[in-house]
């Protein structure tokens, strides 16, 4: 399955639209100059295209397999993982003191897109390790960090996140896994499910982060603590000791991401697995939440990354496949189905959609970078609010839209898209999980209307729409007709978003906003996506380097404004008027 990293598009978005220079000007990110980032993206593109992409199909067909002795990943994965670690790709954004490169999150997100476009099942392993490292980095003692973090940054050991139990999915308050104090450590027992890369043969050791309850813990979410449970205990000198009392008892058979082992983990079948408390007792859920924004952002990146892969495949097919006389073909030889207007529409939706989602995700990441390193405290607050506000859009909108675009990828292939042989279906199947894990779309929607909008009385949203309106003003000043079109569409969209936000803030009956909350995520995501595309068009207008490339960027932005932004207006109707029917039905009649 061939993949070519869209290095040029990523660079354009980072440098000319999001503004890498602003991030690189922050203390601590000085290294992230455009030329260095270009070299990193180039090499990452090469590695993902040549090493990870060829394993995507193998991974889907063979899948990971379980036996009493453990989980075996598909052919070639171990070598690829070793190369991945040796080349330092897992360590990109981590702190230099633990062997990372300390690069900004916006660069890391740009690189991670390539992992997931080329091979999402593979990319999940380092993604989970990164989440675990983040959690330890923020909350573990220095001694604990010393012991585990460097090896995880290297990739020699991988990390997992153990939250879900059969009765505790979205509702983590009902977690039952127990932790009994035993000297300087704890004994953990219980079952965890849906543990991505909970067991595999890629690394020497696996460091499980496990949520569990102490015997005297209060009920509910305030009684959950976080523990490190290594697969092999780690001796004081850093060498590996005995096998801990934790094992993978089975792996799930899934719709997609076959190569990524989704494990049922059993802790403490014998004496109880040895675990070490992270931070303080009963603070576990809070610790998990501090890294939740990052993890959700990463899954949002998966959402458009996989659509980017699907787009490349569909594009190649549409150029090659001939069916009937086309309306747009310019000659006898130019009769690929890409010249049928509707196929063109599908491909344009995919392409402009991926660009818009990439813009949103990189903008969000750059906000977190500024929140972390900006010298001015007010600016740090401002960008922290912005990053947190955009995160549920990155996760919610980009995964839902990503699935839709992968479905379009199948559609472009016609009947052959439904046949596994072409590989179009794999993107669609693999993409389907992204709207579910790390918090379903509904959870993102709750987060957006509750924690990110209602809690600050709509301040963050107001700041965002003010910036979008400024861009509308810039578009209006342009003398290009396409930009005028965008000004109108983006102006209408931002107004609809503001109206809807005002409506949401005024509701007393919580069920009404909840019924429209997912649509609110979609309309917010589309508006910000349209904003990023409009800024892309403005940047392209200002750039004289390559007129053909600039014109294409402007046309893509116009397409997005004309095809996606009008949906924001209907979103307003759905959210503000569609709640009543949703909640008033007699359930017995359904």
């Amino acid at each position, binding site marked *: 399955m061939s993949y070519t990293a869209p290095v040029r598009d990523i660079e354009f978005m980072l440098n000319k639209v999001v503004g890498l220079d602003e991030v690189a000007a922050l203390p601590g990110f000085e290294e992230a100059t455009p030329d260095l980032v270009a070299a990193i993206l180039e090499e990452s593109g090469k590695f993902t295209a040549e090493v990870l992409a060829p394993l995507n199909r193998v991974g889907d067909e063979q899948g990971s397999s379980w036996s009493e002795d453990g989980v075996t990943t598909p052919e070639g994965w171990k070598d690829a993982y070793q190369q991945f670690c040796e*080349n330092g790709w897992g360590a990109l954004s981590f702190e230099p003191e633990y062997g990372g*490169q300390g690069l900004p999150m916006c660069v890391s997100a740009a690189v991670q897109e390539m992992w997931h476009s080329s091979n999402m099942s593979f990319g999940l392993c380092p993604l989970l390790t990164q989440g675990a490292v983040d959690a330890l980095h923020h909350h573990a003692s220095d001694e604990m960090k010393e012991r585990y973090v460097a090896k995880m940054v290297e990739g020699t050991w991988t990390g997992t996140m153990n939250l879900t139990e059969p009765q505790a999915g979205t509702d983590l308050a009902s977690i039952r896994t127990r932790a009994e104090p035993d000297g300087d450590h704890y004994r953990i027992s219980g079952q965890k499910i849906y543990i991505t890369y909970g067991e595999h043969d890629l690394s020497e050791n696996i460091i499980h982060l496990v949520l569990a309850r102490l015997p005297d813990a209060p009920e509910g979410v305030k009684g959950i603590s976080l523990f490190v449970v290594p697969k092999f205990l780690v001796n004081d000198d850093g060498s590996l000791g005995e096998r801990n009392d934790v094992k993978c008892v089975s792996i799930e058979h899934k719709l997609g991401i076959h190569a990524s082992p989704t494990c049922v983990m059993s802790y403490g079948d014998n004496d109880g697995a040895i675990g070490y408390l992270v931070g303080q007792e009963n603070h576990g859920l809070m610790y998990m939440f501090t890294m939740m924004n990052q993890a959700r952002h990463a899954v949002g990146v998966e959402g458009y990354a996989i659509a980017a892969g699907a787009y490349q495949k569909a594009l190649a097919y549409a150029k090659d496949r001939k069916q009937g006389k086309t309306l747009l073909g310019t000659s006898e030889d130019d009769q690929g189905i890409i010249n049928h207007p509707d196929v063109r529409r599908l491909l344009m939706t995919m392409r402009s959609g991926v660009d818009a989602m990439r813009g949103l995700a990189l903008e969000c990441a750059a906000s977190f970078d500024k929140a972390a390193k900006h010298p001015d405290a007010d600016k740090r607050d401002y960008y922290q609010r912005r990053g947190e506000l955009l995160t549920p859009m990155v996760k919610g909108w980009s995964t839902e839209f990503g699935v839709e675009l992968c479905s379009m990828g199948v559609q472009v292939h016609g009947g052959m898209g439904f046949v596994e042989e072409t590989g179009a279906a794999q993107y669609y199947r693999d993409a389907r999980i992204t709207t579910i894990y790390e918090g379903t779309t509904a959870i993102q929607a709750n987060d957006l209307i509750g924690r990110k909008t209602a809690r600050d009385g709509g301040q963050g949203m107001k700041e965002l729409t003010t910036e979008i309106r400024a861009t509308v003003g810039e578009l209006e000043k342009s003398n290009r007709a396409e930009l005028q079109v965008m000004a109108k569409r983006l102006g209408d969209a931002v107004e609809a978003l503001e109206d809807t936000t005002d409506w949401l803030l005024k509701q007393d009956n919580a069920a009404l906003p909840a019924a429209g909350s997912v649509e609110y995520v979609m309309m917010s995501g589309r508006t910000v996506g349209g904003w990023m595309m409009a800024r892309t068009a403005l940047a392209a207008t200002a750039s004289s380097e390559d007129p053909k490339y600039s014109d294409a960027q402007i046309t893509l932005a116009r397409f997005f404004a004309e095809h996606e932004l009008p949906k924001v207006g209907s979103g307003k109707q759905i959210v503000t008027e569609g709640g009543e029917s949703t909640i008033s039905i007699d359930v017995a009649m359904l």
Partner: protein
Amino acid sequence: MKVLVAVKRVLDYNVKARVKADKSGIELANVKMSMNPFDEIAVEEALRIKEAGNAEEVIAVSIGPSQSQETIRTALAMGADRGILIETEEELQPLVIAKLLKHVVEKESPGLVIVGKQAIDDDSNQTGQMLSAMTGWAQATFASKVEFEGDALKVTREVDSGLESIKVAMPAVITTDLRLNEPRYAKLPNIMKAKKKPLETIPVADTGVTTTTGLSVVEVNEPEQRQAGVIVSDVSELVDKLKNEAKVI
């Protein structure tokens, strides 16, 4: 011992080459450029020689416009120690390139020069041989294996009839063939370090080498499009066509 490798910035091998409208050459504006693949093999070989303890320093040299710095940085990210760019906006012929490399050889006195057997843009396959003639050094072209034997090198060459092993005294010039090695991927920490490695730029005028040759490009054309085939009804028609139309038998 120092090893000198020459790296050329060329049209990326994945990009379909298009002739400029005025037929003066290939369209290079706004297309992806990267290191000539045979030169990547040369860099890899030099690094392996250094890693095996047979060399102390690997120097990457490029001759071209200022953007060729990126190509040198790629070599530095793979592990080369420093770079030299002879900067020129002109498109130079292999003879001039060989003279300029000789200039660098005299300045650096390496024990070994490794170059790609050809660049994928002009397919000249001349620079290494010309450099060898000008320096009076031994040459080992189309190398698929390089082994150190005391002060000499045993080089396996890919020739039409198979593999030929030769022994050459050092200093020598090696040109690389496709099967010599598989170039490594640059590691992320090395990409970051590459930025800080020394890269010296020498304007071509400072070398004292005359860049003109008696050769000029008259016109560049796309290869002719392949014609559609015909289905013949039987063997005798095929033989007839081969004999009378194609005139090959």
